[in-house]
């Protein structure tokens, strides 16, 4: 194929879109909605995965001891855990007093009376909450570590971050499922609309196509502008939502971290925009071009038989 042919076909592709404005706009709009939703769910899903990972590694495992266990036994347990150097990254001892201090700072900050009221003249409401915080290198090792610690003498309870991560996993799965269904529906609508747009384009150019064939145009030459039309619609339909999402994402991250500082504290915040879009942009564009290609090729096969 000559470069001039490609240039000619691209020009014709744009011309088709121009001649057929309403249909083209409808196609681009649906495609944009499809890619927008895809991008939205993609951003949410990747952030959930990111949070999940952070929660898992940051919260770690909490080891509580039998009531009234003496300090020496506690230290023995500590040494046992620290000894597993291949799995354990860090072990912190938190005494009951420290646990209370941290708790009251967090929940009764600037309200000493309330803290005292909660304490209700006990020495320390969290008297049995002395514990080790154990962090692992690899989250996959956590389960076996927990099993091992549970077998140690004097250990009352081992808490894992599983609850939080399980909840997030469930939410993540739900969002993924819902988004996949919505995206599939929009995908079908996009393909349908592109197909309609190109059908109208072919109808408008019937005479021209007939003349082309009399003159000796190959099928490839006749079809190329319509394929390119689909690709162009796909590209525009993908580029618009990606740009919008890029700015929206930055705004959303700032807003969310502002409102829910807990996210920042516990989960290392949200993914920076570039880290999400380095994947989202190519995937979105490929999706757009793919939808355009599929839409145009089905139509051409149907209406431009050799």
């Amino acid at each position, binding site marked *: *194929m*000559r470069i*001039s*042919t490609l240039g*000619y076909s691209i020009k014709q592709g744009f011309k088709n879109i121009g001649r057929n404005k309403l249909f083209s706009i409808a196609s681009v709009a649906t495609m944009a909605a499809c890619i927008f939703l895809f991008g939205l769910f993609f951003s949410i899903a990747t952030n959930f995965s990111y949070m999940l990972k952070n929660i898992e590694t940051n919260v770690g495992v909490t080891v509580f001891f039998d009531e009234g266990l003496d300090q020496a036994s506690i230290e023995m347990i500590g040494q046992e855990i620290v000894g597993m150097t291949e799995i354990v990254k860090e072990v912190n001892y938190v005494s009951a007093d420290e646990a209370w201090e941290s708790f009251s700072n967090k929940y009764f900050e600037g309200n000493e009376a309330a803290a005292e009221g909660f304490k209700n003249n006990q020495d320390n409401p969290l008297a049995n909450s002395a514990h080790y915080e154990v962090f692992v290198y690899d989250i996959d090792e956590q389960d076996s570590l927990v099993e091992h610690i549970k077998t140690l003498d004097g250990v009352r309870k081992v808490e894992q971050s599983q609850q939080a991560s399980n909840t997030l996993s469930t939410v993540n799965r739900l969002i993924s499922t819902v988004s996949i269904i919505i995206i599939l529906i929009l995908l079908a609508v996009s393909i349908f609309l592109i197909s309609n747009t190109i059908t109208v384009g072919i109808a408008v150019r019937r*005479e*021209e196509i*007939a*003349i*082309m*064939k*009399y*003159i*000796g*145009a*190959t*099928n490839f*030459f006749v079809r190329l502008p319509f394929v390119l039309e689909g690709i162009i619609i796909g590209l525009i339909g993908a580029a618009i939502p990606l740009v919008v999402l890029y700015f929206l994402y930055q705004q959303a991250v700032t807003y969310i971290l502002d409102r829910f500082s807990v996210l920042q504290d516990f989960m290392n915040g949200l993914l920076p925009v570039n880290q999400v879009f380095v994947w989202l942009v190519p995937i979105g564009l490929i999706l757009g071009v793919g939808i355009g290609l599929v839409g145009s090729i089905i139509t051409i096969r149907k209406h431009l038989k*050799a």
Partner: protein
Amino acid sequence: MITLKNVSKSYVQGSKALADVDLHIDKGEFVFVVGASGSGKTTFIKLLLKEIDPTSGSIIINDQQLERMPRRKIPKYRRGVGVVFQDFRLLKDRNVYENVAFAQRVIEKPTKVIKKRVPEVLTLVGLAEKYRSFPKELSGGEQQRVALARAIVNRPEILLADEPTGNLDPQNAVEIMKLLEEINSRGTTVVVVTHNREIVNSMRKRVVRLKKGVIISDEKEGVYVED
């Protein structure tokens, strides 16, 4: 050049549009194929363009057997056959230059060649001055000349003209026929399908008469007389 052997064509309804037609046209000939409507003229043109295939018989053009030609070879075959129609079939949204250039664009000629060749043929058909006009700004005769320019721009060996003067007044009709003669004199085989008696009789070329799908006469320097 063009050989039809026992060619018959029936459409679905059963009646034969062409029946056992034998015809040979040499390279460089100028031939009129004449007859009333329903005589099989249009079927004849469609067969030569390989728009349709014969029900039986064989069509050989430039040593290629049309009914055996695979679909993918049709475009290349058609590049060797120029065609003009009664209704011109120009692209209304493109000017004269673009309409002619289109034929070269379609067969992927380089832009450099197009820029040289299109003005040449427009000069030949006498429309060099009007290259920027759009079809609706031209008379019928001028539109047919654009169509002719488009048909010959790729230097086909055969030029088929389907009622080329059907929509033209006598003076324009004569002009078009002169052009066809000019094109023929440069070596192109010209086949004109028509029912315009004055034109045929004034030119004294080979005349093949069709009636109800059968050749009823084939004369050199013939005339078109009442059926």
